[in-house]
Protein backbone atom coordinates (compact mmCIF):
# COMPACT_ATOMS: atom_id res chain seq x y z
CA UNK A 1 0.00 0.00 0.00
CA UNK A 2 2.76 2.41 0.94
CA UNK A 3 4.71 1.54 -2.16
CA UNK A 4 1.63 2.19 -4.22
CA UNK A 5 1.24 5.62 -2.68
CA UNK A 6 4.88 6.40 -3.37
CA UNK A 7 4.46 5.30 -6.96
CA UNK A 8 1.36 7.45 -7.35
CA UNK A 9 3.18 10.40 -5.80
CA UNK A 10 6.11 9.95 -8.18
CA UNK A 11 3.80 9.81 -11.19
CA UNK A 12 1.98 12.96 -10.11
CA UNK A 13 5.26 14.76 -9.42
CA UNK A 14 6.80 13.76 -12.75
CA UNK A 15 3.66 14.70 -14.65
CA UNK A 16 3.73 18.07 -12.92
CA UNK A 17 7.36 18.57 -13.87
CA UNK A 18 6.61 17.47 -17.39
CA UNK A 19 3.80 19.99 -17.75
CA UNK A 20 5.41 22.94 -15.97
CA UNK A 21 9.09 22.75 -16.87
CA UNK A 22 8.84 23.03 -20.70
CA UNK A 23 6.93 26.29 -20.24
CA UNK A 24 9.68 27.75 -18.09
CA UNK A 25 12.82 26.92 -20.07
CA UNK A 26 13.89 27.19 -23.69
CA UNK A 27 14.75 24.14 -25.84
CA UNK A 28 18.47 24.56 -25.20
CA UNK A 29 18.02 24.28 -21.43
CA UNK A 30 15.55 21.43 -21.97
CA UNK A 31 18.15 19.50 -23.89
CA UNK A 32 20.77 20.04 -21.20
CA UNK A 33 18.41 18.89 -18.44
CA UNK A 34 17.42 15.78 -20.39
CA UNK A 35 21.07 14.96 -21.13
CA UNK A 36 21.87 15.42 -17.43
CA UNK A 37 19.16 12.89 -16.66
CA UNK A 38 20.45 10.39 -19.21
CA UNK A 39 23.99 10.82 -17.90
CA UNK A 40 22.78 10.27 -14.33
CA UNK A 41 21.22 6.96 -15.37
CA UNK A 42 24.46 5.98 -17.11
CA UNK A 43 26.68 7.01 -14.21
CA UNK A 44 24.60 5.33 -11.49
CA UNK A 45 24.28 2.14 -13.53
CA UNK A 46 28.03 2.03 -14.14
CA UNK A 47 28.52 2.65 -10.44
CA UNK A 48 26.72 -0.66 -9.80
CA UNK A 49 29.48 -2.46 -11.73
CA UNK A 50 32.55 -0.33 -10.95
CA UNK A 51 31.75 1.26 -7.62
CA UNK A 52 29.66 -1.39 -5.87
CA UNK A 53 31.27 -4.56 -7.15
CA UNK A 54 34.75 -3.29 -8.00
CA UNK A 55 34.72 -4.83 -11.47
CA UNK A 56 36.33 -2.41 -13.85
CA UNK A 57 34.17 -1.96 -16.95
CA UNK A 58 34.97 0.56 -19.69
CA UNK A 59 32.45 -0.59 -22.27
CA UNK A 60 29.36 1.19 -21.04
CA UNK A 61 28.83 2.96 -24.37
CA UNK A 62 28.40 -0.46 -25.96
CA UNK A 63 25.48 -1.34 -23.67
CA UNK A 64 24.04 2.09 -24.28
CA UNK A 65 24.32 1.62 -28.04
CA UNK A 66 22.52 -1.73 -27.86
CA UNK A 67 19.68 -0.19 -25.87
CA UNK A 68 19.47 2.79 -28.18
CA UNK A 69 19.43 0.82 -31.40
CA UNK A 70 17.27 -1.97 -29.97
CA UNK A 71 14.55 0.34 -28.72
CA UNK A 72 14.70 2.59 -31.77
CA UNK A 73 14.35 -0.38 -34.11
CA UNK A 74 11.38 -1.65 -32.12
CA UNK A 75 9.70 1.74 -32.21
CA UNK A 76 10.25 2.20 -35.93
CA UNK A 77 9.12 -1.32 -36.85
CA UNK A 78 6.33 -1.91 -34.31
CA UNK A 79 5.82 0.97 -31.89
CA UNK A 80 4.72 3.57 -34.42
CA UNK A 81 2.05 1.17 -35.66
CA UNK A 82 0.86 0.56 -32.08
CA UNK A 83 0.48 4.25 -31.40
CA UNK A 84 -1.48 4.76 -34.62
CA UNK A 85 -3.76 1.81 -33.75
CA UNK A 86 -4.30 2.91 -30.13
CA UNK A 87 -5.05 6.54 -30.95
CA UNK A 88 -7.50 5.37 -33.62
CA UNK A 89 -9.21 3.32 -30.90
CA UNK A 90 -9.65 6.45 -28.83
CA UNK A 91 -6.70 6.18 -26.41
CA UNK A 92 -5.14 9.61 -25.73
CA UNK A 93 -1.97 10.12 -27.76
CA UNK A 94 0.22 10.73 -24.70
CA UNK A 95 -0.79 7.42 -23.13
CA UNK A 96 -0.32 5.51 -26.39
CA UNK A 97 3.11 7.00 -26.96
CA UNK A 98 4.08 6.39 -23.35
CA UNK A 99 3.09 2.72 -23.54
CA UNK A 100 4.99 2.18 -26.77
CA UNK A 101 8.02 4.00 -25.39
CA UNK A 102 7.97 1.97 -22.18
CA UNK A 103 7.92 -1.31 -24.10
CA UNK A 104 10.71 -0.05 -26.36
CA UNK A 105 12.85 1.00 -23.39
CA UNK A 106 12.29 -2.32 -21.64
CA UNK A 107 13.25 -4.24 -24.77
CA UNK A 108 16.33 -2.08 -25.27
CA UNK A 109 17.28 -2.59 -21.65
CA UNK A 110 16.77 -6.36 -21.89
CA UNK A 111 18.91 -6.54 -25.02
CA UNK A 112 21.68 -4.67 -23.21
CA UNK A 113 21.21 -6.86 -20.13
CA UNK A 114 21.68 -9.97 -22.26
CA UNK A 115 24.91 -8.49 -23.56
CA UNK A 116 25.85 -7.65 -19.98
CA UNK A 117 25.37 -11.32 -19.10
CA UNK A 118 27.65 -12.35 -21.96
CA UNK A 119 30.32 -9.85 -20.92
CA UNK A 120 29.92 -10.75 -17.28
CA UNK A 121 30.84 -14.34 -18.01
CA UNK A 122 34.50 -13.69 -18.88
CA UNK A 123 34.74 -11.63 -15.70
CA UNK A 124 34.88 -14.97 -13.93
CA UNK A 125 38.24 -15.64 -15.51
CA UNK A 126 39.69 -12.17 -15.90
CA UNK A 127 40.71 -9.72 -13.23
CA UNK A 128 41.36 -6.00 -13.06
CA UNK A 129 42.83 -4.44 -16.13
CA UNK A 130 42.38 -7.50 -18.28
CA UNK A 131 38.66 -7.42 -17.64
CA UNK A 132 38.66 -3.67 -18.31
CA UNK A 133 40.22 -4.14 -21.69
CA UNK A 134 37.79 -6.92 -22.63
CA UNK A 135 34.81 -4.69 -21.82
CA UNK A 136 36.44 -1.93 -23.86
CA UNK A 137 36.90 -4.32 -26.76
CA UNK A 138 33.32 -5.46 -26.43
CA UNK A 139 32.07 -1.88 -26.68
CA UNK A 140 34.15 -1.26 -29.79
CA UNK A 141 32.99 -4.51 -31.41
CA UNK A 142 29.34 -3.50 -30.91
CA UNK A 143 30.04 -0.13 -32.51
CA UNK A 144 31.74 -1.69 -35.54
CA UNK A 145 28.93 -4.26 -35.76
CA UNK A 146 26.29 -1.52 -35.90
CA UNK A 147 28.42 0.31 -38.46
CA UNK A 148 28.22 -2.76 -40.68
CA UNK A 149 24.51 -3.59 -40.43
CA UNK A 150 22.76 -1.71 -43.19
CA UNK A 151 19.23 -2.47 -41.92
CA UNK A 152 19.75 -0.08 -38.99
CA UNK A 153 21.43 2.62 -41.03
CA UNK A 154 25.10 1.57 -40.78
CA UNK A 155 27.42 4.53 -41.02
CA UNK A 156 24.60 6.83 -42.21
CA UNK A 157 22.95 6.57 -38.81
CA UNK A 158 19.35 5.85 -37.94
CA UNK A 159 17.01 8.81 -38.41
CA UNK A 160 13.32 9.54 -37.91
CA UNK A 161 12.92 8.02 -34.46
CA UNK A 162 9.85 9.65 -32.88
CA UNK A 163 10.87 12.05 -30.10
CA UNK A 164 8.72 10.56 -27.34
CA UNK A 165 11.17 10.87 -24.47
CA UNK A 166 10.34 13.86 -22.27
CA UNK A 167 10.93 15.00 -18.71
CA UNK A 168 8.47 12.41 -17.44
CA UNK A 169 10.23 9.38 -18.89
CA UNK A 170 13.76 10.58 -18.25
CA UNK A 171 12.75 11.49 -14.69
CA UNK A 172 11.18 8.06 -14.24
CA UNK A 173 14.38 6.40 -15.46
CA UNK A 174 16.50 8.47 -13.07
CA UNK A 175 14.20 7.65 -10.13
CA UNK A 176 14.14 3.96 -11.01
CA UNK A 177 17.94 3.59 -11.20
CA UNK A 178 18.54 5.60 -8.03
CA UNK A 179 15.90 3.67 -6.07
CA UNK A 180 17.28 0.36 -7.27
CA UNK A 181 20.85 1.33 -6.37
CA UNK A 182 19.74 2.66 -2.98
CA UNK A 183 17.74 -0.43 -2.07
CA UNK A 184 20.51 -2.65 -3.36
CA UNK A 185 23.09 -0.88 -1.21
CA UNK A 186 21.01 -1.55 1.90
CA UNK A 187 20.19 -5.17 1.09
CA UNK A 188 21.98 -8.48 1.58
CA UNK A 189 22.75 -8.58 -2.12
CA UNK A 190 24.32 -5.14 -2.00
CA UNK A 191 26.48 -6.17 0.97
CA UNK A 192 27.62 -9.16 -1.04
CA UNK A 193 28.66 -6.86 -3.90
CA UNK A 194 30.58 -4.60 -1.49
CA UNK A 195 32.27 -7.64 -0.01
CA UNK A 196 33.46 -8.71 -3.46
CA UNK A 197 34.81 -5.21 -4.08
CA UNK A 198 36.67 -5.04 -0.79
CA UNK A 199 38.17 -8.53 -0.80
CA UNK A 200 37.08 -11.15 -3.25
CA UNK A 201 38.84 -14.05 -1.57
CA UNK A 202 37.43 -13.19 1.84
CA UNK A 203 33.94 -12.79 0.37
CA UNK A 204 34.16 -16.20 -1.21
CA UNK A 205 35.38 -17.72 2.03
CA UNK A 206 32.33 -16.27 3.79
CA UNK A 207 30.04 -18.03 1.36
CA UNK A 208 29.25 -15.22 -1.09
CA UNK A 209 28.60 -16.66 -4.53
CA UNK A 210 31.07 -14.28 -6.19
CA UNK A 211 30.45 -15.62 -9.68
CA UNK A 212 26.74 -15.00 -9.86
CA UNK A 213 26.95 -11.68 -8.03
CA UNK A 214 29.51 -10.36 -10.49
CA UNK A 215 27.33 -11.38 -13.41
CA UNK A 216 24.31 -9.86 -11.64
CA UNK A 217 26.10 -6.53 -11.33
CA UNK A 218 26.90 -6.56 -15.04
CA UNK A 219 23.32 -7.47 -15.98
CA UNK A 220 21.78 -4.71 -13.86
CA UNK A 221 24.29 -2.08 -14.94
CA UNK A 222 23.85 -3.00 -18.59
CA UNK A 223 20.05 -2.96 -18.33
CA UNK A 224 19.96 0.65 -17.18
CA UNK A 225 22.63 1.68 -19.66
CA UNK A 226 20.30 0.23 -22.31
CA UNK A 227 17.37 2.22 -20.92
CA UNK A 228 19.50 5.37 -21.00
CA UNK A 229 20.39 4.58 -24.60
CA UNK A 230 16.71 4.15 -25.45
CA UNK A 231 15.86 7.51 -23.91
CA UNK A 232 18.77 9.07 -25.79
CA UNK A 233 17.43 7.64 -29.06
CA UNK A 234 13.87 8.81 -28.41
CA UNK A 235 15.02 12.26 -27.41
CA UNK A 236 17.43 13.13 -30.23
CA UNK A 237 15.45 11.21 -32.93
CA UNK A 238 18.74 10.34 -34.61
CA UNK A 239 21.40 7.76 -33.82
CA UNK A 240 24.90 7.42 -35.19
CA UNK A 241 27.41 4.71 -34.24
CA UNK A 242 30.02 7.39 -33.58
CA UNK A 243 27.96 8.64 -30.60
CA UNK A 244 28.82 5.40 -28.83
CA UNK A 245 32.59 5.30 -29.19
CA UNK A 246 35.10 4.67 -26.48
CA UNK A 247 35.24 8.35 -25.52
CA UNK A 248 31.60 8.06 -24.43
CA UNK A 249 32.44 5.17 -22.06
CA UNK A 250 35.32 7.20 -20.70
CA UNK A 251 33.02 10.14 -19.96
CA UNK A 252 30.77 7.91 -17.87
CA UNK A 253 33.75 6.47 -15.99
CA UNK A 254 34.95 10.00 -15.27
CA UNK A 255 31.52 10.71 -13.73
CA UNK A 256 31.67 7.64 -11.50
CA UNK A 257 35.22 8.21 -10.32
CA UNK A 258 34.80 11.95 -9.89
CA UNK A 259 31.65 11.43 -7.86
CA UNK A 260 33.28 8.81 -5.68
CA UNK A 261 33.24 5.06 -6.26
CA UNK A 262 30.17 3.49 -4.73
CA UNK A 263 28.48 6.79 -3.88
CA UNK A 264 25.11 7.10 -5.61
CA UNK A 265 24.64 10.77 -4.85
CA UNK A 266 28.25 11.33 -5.89
CA UNK A 267 27.50 9.85 -9.31
CA UNK A 268 24.46 12.08 -9.63
CA UNK A 269 26.38 15.22 -8.69
CA UNK A 270 29.31 14.38 -10.95
CA UNK A 271 27.03 13.51 -13.87
CA UNK A 272 25.33 16.88 -13.62
CA UNK A 273 28.66 18.67 -13.15
CA UNK A 274 30.36 17.03 -16.12
CA UNK A 275 27.33 17.58 -18.35
CA UNK A 276 27.08 21.25 -17.41
CA UNK A 277 30.80 22.00 -17.52
CA UNK A 278 31.22 22.00 -21.34
CA UNK A 279 28.03 24.09 -21.65
CA UNK A 280 29.08 26.64 -19.04
CA UNK A 281 32.46 26.89 -20.76
CA UNK A 282 30.86 27.62 -24.14
CA UNK A 283 31.69 31.38 -24.05
CA UNK A 284 35.42 30.66 -24.05
CA UNK A 285 34.94 28.80 -27.36
CA UNK A 286 38.23 27.24 -28.50
CA UNK A 287 39.61 26.92 -25.00
CA UNK A 288 36.52 25.05 -23.81
CA UNK A 289 37.80 21.50 -23.99
CA UNK A 290 41.29 22.50 -22.86
CA UNK A 291 39.85 24.01 -19.69
CA UNK A 292 37.55 21.01 -19.26
CA UNK A 293 40.47 18.59 -19.36
CA UNK A 294 42.57 20.77 -17.06
CA UNK A 295 39.69 20.92 -14.55
CA UNK A 296 39.37 17.15 -14.70
CA UNK A 297 43.09 16.74 -13.91
CA UNK A 298 43.03 19.33 -11.12
CA UNK A 299 39.89 17.78 -9.57
CA UNK A 300 41.50 14.35 -9.57
CA UNK A 301 44.71 15.67 -8.04
CA UNK A 302 42.94 17.64 -5.31
CA UNK A 303 40.17 15.12 -4.58
CA UNK A 304 41.56 11.72 -5.59
CA UNK A 305 38.79 9.84 -3.76
CA UNK A 306 36.11 11.63 -5.76
CA UNK A 307 33.98 14.55 -4.73
CA UNK A 308 32.04 12.64 -2.10
CA UNK A 309 34.37 9.70 -1.51
CA UNK A 310 32.16 6.77 -0.65
CA UNK A 311 29.79 8.92 1.43
CA UNK A 312 26.23 9.70 0.48
CA UNK A 313 24.64 13.10 0.43
CA UNK A 314 21.65 12.92 2.74
CA UNK A 315 19.49 15.30 4.71
CA UNK A 316 20.86 14.04 8.01
CA UNK A 317 24.42 14.54 6.84
CA UNK A 318 23.69 18.02 5.52
CA UNK A 319 21.94 19.20 8.69
CA UNK A 320 24.75 17.85 10.83
CA UNK A 321 27.25 19.61 8.66
CA UNK A 322 25.59 23.00 8.53
CA UNK A 323 24.09 23.13 11.98
CA UNK A 324 25.26 26.22 13.87
CA UNK A 325 28.30 25.58 16.04
CA UNK A 326 26.67 26.32 19.37
CA UNK A 327 24.08 23.60 18.85
CA UNK A 328 26.80 21.11 18.08
CA UNK A 329 28.43 21.60 21.47
Amino acid sequence: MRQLLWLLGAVVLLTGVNVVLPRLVNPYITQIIILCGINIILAVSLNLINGFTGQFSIGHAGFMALGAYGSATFTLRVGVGWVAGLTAAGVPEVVAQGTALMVALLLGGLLAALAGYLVGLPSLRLRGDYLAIVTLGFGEIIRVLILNVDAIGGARGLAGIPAWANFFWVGAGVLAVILLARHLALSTHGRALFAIRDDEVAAEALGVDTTSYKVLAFVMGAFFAGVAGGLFAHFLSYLNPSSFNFIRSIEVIAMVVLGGMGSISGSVVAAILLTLMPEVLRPVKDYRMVIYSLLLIVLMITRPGGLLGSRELSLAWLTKRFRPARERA
Partner: protein
Amino acid sequence: MTEFLQQLVNGVTLGLGYALIALGYTMVYGILRLINFAHGDVYMLGAFFGFYAARLTGAAVEPNPLKAAGILLISMVGCGLVGFLIERFAYKPVRKSSRLAALITAIGVSLLLENGGLLLFGADPKFFPQIVRATNIPLGMGVTISNQQIIILVVSVALMLALRFIVLNTRAGKAMRAVSYSHTAAALMGISVDRIITFTFVLGSMLAAAAGVLVALQNPKIEPYMGIMPGLKAFVAAVLGGIGNIPGAVLGGLVMGIAEVMVVGYLSPTWRDAIAFVLLILILLVRPSGLLGQPPAEKV
Protein backbone atom coordinates in the same frame (compact mmCIF):
# COMPACT_ATOMS: atom_id res chain seq x y z
CA MET B 1 50.47 -16.24 -52.74
CA THR B 2 52.00 -13.01 -54.03
CA GLU B 3 49.17 -11.03 -52.53
CA PHE B 4 49.51 -12.83 -49.22
CA LEU B 5 53.24 -12.13 -49.01
CA GLN B 6 52.69 -8.52 -49.94
CA GLN B 7 50.07 -8.22 -47.19
CA LEU B 8 52.50 -9.85 -44.78
CA VAL B 9 55.14 -7.22 -45.57
CA ASN B 10 52.61 -4.43 -45.06
CA GLY B 11 51.32 -6.07 -41.89
CA VAL B 12 54.77 -6.33 -40.35
CA THR B 13 55.41 -2.64 -41.06
CA LEU B 14 52.13 -1.63 -39.50
CA GLY B 15 52.71 -3.99 -36.59
CA LEU B 16 56.14 -2.51 -35.84
CA GLY B 17 54.47 0.90 -35.48
CA TYR B 18 51.99 -0.58 -33.00
CA ALA B 19 54.83 -2.37 -31.24
CA LEU B 20 56.79 0.86 -30.71
CA ILE B 21 53.75 2.49 -29.08
CA ALA B 22 52.89 -0.67 -27.14
CA LEU B 23 56.39 -0.68 -25.59
CA GLY B 24 55.65 2.64 -23.88
CA TYR B 25 52.35 1.31 -22.54
CA THR B 26 53.85 -1.87 -21.27
CA MET B 27 56.85 -0.22 -19.57
CA VAL B 28 54.71 2.33 -17.74
CA TYR B 29 52.24 -0.36 -16.77
CA GLY B 30 55.01 -2.65 -15.58
CA ILE B 31 56.31 0.04 -13.25
CA LEU B 32 53.21 1.96 -12.15
CA ARG B 33 50.30 -0.41 -12.96
CA LEU B 34 48.89 2.62 -14.77
CA ILE B 35 47.17 2.54 -18.15
CA ASN B 36 48.67 5.68 -19.60
CA PHE B 37 45.79 6.76 -21.83
CA ALA B 38 47.72 9.82 -22.96
CA HIS B 39 50.35 7.67 -24.66
CA GLY B 40 48.52 7.61 -28.01
CA ASP B 41 48.48 11.39 -27.94
CA VAL B 42 52.21 11.51 -27.33
CA TYR B 43 52.49 9.52 -30.55
CA MET B 44 50.38 12.22 -32.24
CA LEU B 45 52.69 14.91 -30.84
CA GLY B 46 55.64 12.96 -32.21
CA ALA B 47 54.24 13.20 -35.71
CA PHE B 48 53.56 16.94 -35.30
CA PHE B 49 57.01 17.66 -33.85
CA GLY B 50 58.44 15.84 -36.84
CA PHE B 51 56.26 17.90 -39.16
CA TYR B 52 57.47 21.22 -37.75
CA ALA B 53 61.08 20.01 -37.57
CA ALA B 54 60.86 19.09 -41.25
CA ARG B 55 59.63 22.60 -42.02
CA LEU B 56 62.42 24.21 -40.00
CA THR B 57 65.19 22.15 -41.53
CA GLY B 58 63.77 22.51 -45.02
CA ALA B 59 63.84 18.73 -45.42
CA ALA B 60 60.54 18.92 -47.28
CA VAL B 61 62.18 20.71 -50.20
CA GLU B 62 65.44 18.82 -50.49
CA PRO B 63 65.27 15.54 -48.61
CA ASN B 64 68.46 13.98 -47.37
CA PRO B 65 69.02 11.12 -44.93
CA LEU B 66 70.92 13.23 -42.42
CA LYS B 67 68.06 15.70 -42.10
CA ALA B 68 65.58 12.83 -41.78
CA ALA B 69 67.59 11.41 -38.91
CA GLY B 70 67.73 14.86 -37.34
CA ILE B 71 63.95 15.20 -37.58
CA LEU B 72 63.48 11.84 -35.89
CA LEU B 73 65.85 12.90 -33.12
CA ILE B 74 64.19 16.30 -32.57
CA SER B 75 60.78 14.69 -32.36
CA MET B 76 62.03 12.06 -29.91
CA VAL B 77 63.67 14.65 -27.66
CA GLY B 78 60.56 16.85 -27.82
CA CYS B 79 58.27 14.02 -26.82
CA GLY B 80 60.69 12.86 -24.15
CA LEU B 81 60.34 16.31 -22.65
CA VAL B 82 56.55 16.16 -22.92
CA GLY B 83 56.59 12.75 -21.22
CA PHE B 84 58.71 14.21 -18.43
CA LEU B 85 56.30 17.13 -17.94
CA ILE B 86 53.20 14.89 -17.96
CA GLU B 87 54.71 12.61 -15.36
CA ARG B 88 55.94 15.44 -13.16
CA PHE B 89 52.80 17.60 -13.15
CA ALA B 90 49.90 15.20 -13.68
CA TYR B 91 50.81 11.68 -12.59
CA LYS B 92 53.20 12.29 -9.73
CA PRO B 93 50.64 14.15 -7.57
CA VAL B 94 48.19 11.23 -7.80
CA ARG B 95 50.73 8.44 -7.43
CA LYS B 96 49.82 7.84 -3.80
CA SER B 97 46.07 7.88 -4.51
CA SER B 98 44.00 5.05 -5.92
CA ARG B 99 44.81 3.62 -9.33
CA LEU B 100 41.47 4.85 -10.62
CA ALA B 101 42.27 8.44 -9.73
CA ALA B 102 45.46 8.04 -11.72
CA LEU B 103 43.51 6.54 -14.61
CA ILE B 104 41.07 9.46 -14.76
CA THR B 105 44.03 11.84 -14.59
CA ALA B 106 45.52 10.01 -17.56
CA ILE B 107 42.25 10.47 -19.41
CA GLY B 108 42.33 14.16 -18.54
CA VAL B 109 45.89 14.45 -19.88
CA SER B 110 44.83 12.67 -23.04
CA LEU B 111 41.95 15.11 -23.58
CA LEU B 112 44.28 18.00 -22.82
CA LEU B 113 46.83 16.92 -25.42
CA GLU B 114 44.14 16.36 -28.06
CA ASN B 115 42.36 19.65 -27.50
CA GLY B 116 45.57 21.55 -26.90
CA GLY B 117 46.81 20.10 -30.18
CA LEU B 118 43.59 21.20 -31.85
CA LEU B 119 44.21 24.71 -30.58
CA LEU B 120 47.90 24.84 -31.51
CA PHE B 121 47.99 22.92 -34.78
CA GLY B 122 44.47 23.61 -36.08
CA ALA B 123 41.73 21.12 -36.83
CA ASP B 124 42.49 20.68 -40.53
CA PRO B 125 44.73 17.71 -41.30
CA LYS B 126 48.34 18.48 -42.22
CA PHE B 127 50.43 16.49 -44.64
CA PHE B 128 53.74 15.16 -43.47
CA PRO B 129 56.39 16.11 -46.03
CA GLN B 130 58.29 13.45 -47.98
CA ILE B 131 61.53 13.62 -46.02
CA VAL B 132 62.79 10.60 -47.95
CA ARG B 133 61.89 10.11 -51.60
CA ALA B 134 59.72 7.04 -52.03
CA THR B 135 60.95 4.24 -54.25
CA ASN B 136 59.68 0.70 -54.55
CA ILE B 137 62.13 -2.15 -54.36
CA PRO B 138 61.08 -5.55 -55.76
CA LEU B 139 61.66 -8.49 -53.41
CA GLY B 140 60.95 -11.20 -55.98
CA MET B 141 57.75 -13.19 -56.59
CA GLY B 142 55.98 -9.91 -57.40
CA VAL B 143 56.29 -8.63 -53.81
CA THR B 144 57.58 -5.09 -53.43
CA ILE B 145 58.73 -3.14 -50.42
CA SER B 146 59.06 0.62 -50.37
CA ASN B 147 62.22 2.23 -49.02
CA GLN B 148 60.00 3.90 -46.41
CA GLN B 149 58.93 0.49 -45.19
CA ILE B 150 62.58 -0.54 -45.01
CA ILE B 151 63.33 2.55 -42.93
CA ILE B 152 60.45 1.72 -40.58
CA LEU B 153 61.73 -1.83 -40.29
CA VAL B 154 65.36 -0.90 -39.65
CA VAL B 155 64.72 2.02 -37.30
CA SER B 156 62.14 0.24 -35.18
CA VAL B 157 64.22 -2.91 -34.84
CA ALA B 158 67.24 -0.76 -33.94
CA LEU B 159 65.21 1.10 -31.30
CA MET B 160 63.91 -2.15 -29.87
CA LEU B 161 67.41 -3.56 -29.62
CA ALA B 162 68.54 -0.34 -27.94
CA LEU B 163 65.69 -0.64 -25.46
CA ARG B 164 66.60 -4.26 -24.81
CA PHE B 165 70.16 -3.21 -24.15
CA ILE B 166 69.05 -0.45 -21.77
CA VAL B 167 66.71 -2.68 -19.83
CA LEU B 168 68.98 -5.71 -19.58
CA ASN B 169 72.51 -4.27 -19.54
CA THR B 170 72.54 -0.88 -17.84
CA ARG B 171 72.23 0.17 -14.22
CA ALA B 172 69.13 2.24 -15.02
CA GLY B 173 67.54 -0.76 -16.70
CA LYS B 174 68.35 -2.98 -13.77
CA ALA B 175 66.76 -0.37 -11.50
CA MET B 176 63.69 -0.29 -13.75
CA ARG B 177 63.25 -4.01 -13.41
CA ALA B 178 63.71 -3.76 -9.66
CA VAL B 179 61.12 -1.00 -9.35
CA SER B 180 58.61 -2.93 -11.44
CA TYR B 181 59.07 -5.84 -9.07
CA SER B 182 58.53 -3.86 -5.87
CA HIS B 183 58.68 -0.12 -5.21
CA THR B 184 59.41 -0.57 -1.51
CA ALA B 185 62.15 -3.13 -1.89
CA ALA B 186 63.77 -1.11 -4.67
CA ALA B 187 63.69 2.03 -2.52
CA LEU B 188 65.30 0.11 0.35
CA MET B 189 68.14 -0.92 -1.98
CA GLY B 190 68.90 2.75 -2.56
CA ILE B 191 67.15 3.14 -5.90
CA SER B 192 65.53 6.52 -6.47
CA VAL B 193 62.09 5.25 -7.45
CA ASP B 194 60.88 8.66 -8.61
CA ARG B 195 63.80 9.11 -10.92
CA ILE B 196 63.34 5.65 -12.43
CA ILE B 197 59.64 6.31 -13.05
CA THR B 198 60.50 9.57 -14.81
CA PHE B 199 63.15 7.75 -16.84
CA THR B 200 60.57 5.15 -17.90
CA PHE B 201 58.11 7.80 -19.03
CA VAL B 202 60.75 9.63 -21.04
CA LEU B 203 61.89 6.40 -22.66
CA GLY B 204 58.34 5.36 -23.56
CA SER B 205 57.48 8.79 -24.92
CA MET B 206 60.58 8.80 -27.10
CA LEU B 207 59.59 5.46 -28.62
CA ALA B 208 56.07 6.79 -29.27
CA ALA B 209 57.57 9.85 -30.97
CA ALA B 210 59.66 7.61 -33.21
CA ALA B 211 56.51 5.67 -34.09
CA GLY B 212 54.74 8.96 -34.90
CA VAL B 213 57.44 10.06 -37.35
CA LEU B 214 57.87 6.61 -38.90
CA VAL B 215 54.16 6.00 -39.44
CA ALA B 216 53.74 9.54 -40.82
CA LEU B 217 56.38 8.70 -43.45
CA GLN B 218 53.96 6.15 -44.85
CA ASN B 219 50.58 7.72 -44.02
CA PRO B 220 51.32 11.44 -44.29
CA LYS B 221 47.93 12.73 -43.11
CA ILE B 222 48.31 13.95 -39.52
CA GLU B 223 45.71 15.58 -37.24
CA PRO B 224 45.27 16.10 -33.47
CA TYR B 225 42.94 13.11 -33.00
CA MET B 226 45.11 10.66 -34.94
CA GLY B 227 46.52 9.15 -31.75
CA ILE B 228 43.30 7.74 -30.31
CA MET B 229 42.81 4.63 -32.42
CA PRO B 230 46.49 3.61 -32.80
CA GLY B 231 46.94 4.28 -29.08
CA LEU B 232 44.02 2.05 -28.23
CA LYS B 233 45.20 -0.70 -30.56
CA ALA B 234 48.75 -0.48 -29.27
CA PHE B 235 47.42 -0.84 -25.76
CA VAL B 236 45.44 -3.88 -26.85
CA ALA B 237 48.65 -5.18 -28.42
CA ALA B 238 50.44 -4.74 -25.10
CA VAL B 239 47.69 -6.65 -23.28
CA LEU B 240 47.66 -9.30 -25.98
CA GLY B 241 51.36 -9.96 -25.47
CA GLY B 242 51.03 -9.86 -21.69
CA ILE B 243 51.15 -6.36 -20.26
CA GLY B 244 54.34 -5.43 -18.44
CA ASN B 245 56.29 -7.81 -20.67
CA ILE B 246 58.59 -6.10 -23.19
CA PRO B 247 59.00 -8.89 -25.78
CA GLY B 248 55.25 -9.46 -25.38
CA ALA B 249 54.51 -5.91 -26.53
CA VAL B 250 56.52 -6.43 -29.71
CA LEU B 251 54.87 -9.78 -30.40
CA GLY B 252 51.42 -8.32 -29.69
CA GLY B 253 52.06 -5.38 -32.01
CA LEU B 254 53.13 -7.65 -34.83
CA VAL B 255 50.15 -9.99 -34.38
CA MET B 256 47.85 -7.00 -34.37
CA GLY B 257 49.38 -5.33 -37.44
CA ILE B 258 49.34 -8.52 -39.50
CA ALA B 259 45.78 -9.42 -38.46
CA GLU B 260 44.53 -5.95 -39.31
CA VAL B 261 46.13 -5.88 -42.76
CA MET B 262 44.79 -9.36 -43.51
CA VAL B 263 41.25 -8.36 -42.52
CA VAL B 264 41.40 -5.27 -44.70
CA GLY B 265 42.87 -7.27 -47.59
CA TYR B 266 40.64 -10.33 -47.48
CA LEU B 267 37.48 -9.34 -45.62
CA SER B 268 36.39 -5.71 -45.57
CA PRO B 269 38.03 -2.44 -44.55
CA THR B 270 35.06 -1.52 -42.32
CA TRP B 271 35.92 -4.39 -39.97
CA ARG B 272 39.52 -3.27 -39.46
CA ASP B 273 38.86 -1.68 -36.06
CA ALA B 274 36.95 -4.69 -34.73
CA ILE B 275 39.54 -7.37 -35.48
CA ALA B 276 41.92 -6.05 -32.85
CA PHE B 277 39.33 -6.57 -30.14
CA VAL B 278 37.95 -9.87 -31.41
CA LEU B 279 41.50 -11.21 -31.41
CA LEU B 280 42.07 -9.82 -27.93
CA ILE B 281 38.97 -11.42 -26.44
CA LEU B 282 39.73 -14.77 -28.07
CA ILE B 283 43.31 -14.79 -26.80
CA LEU B 284 42.41 -13.61 -23.30
CA LEU B 285 39.76 -16.32 -23.00
CA VAL B 286 42.42 -18.96 -23.64
CA ARG B 287 45.35 -17.23 -21.93
CA PRO B 288 44.00 -14.73 -19.38
CA SER B 289 47.41 -13.09 -18.88
CA GLY B 290 48.27 -12.60 -22.53
CA LEU B 291 50.59 -14.55 -24.82
CA LEU B 292 53.82 -14.12 -22.85
CA GLY B 293 52.47 -12.87 -19.53
CA GLN B 294 52.89 -14.75 -16.29
CA PRO B 295 49.64 -15.45 -14.46
CA PRO B 296 49.73 -13.52 -11.18
CA ALA B 297 50.01 -15.60 -8.06
CA GLU B 298 46.84 -15.46 -6.01
CA LYS B 299 47.58 -14.27 -2.51
CA VAL B 300 45.15 -15.25 0.17
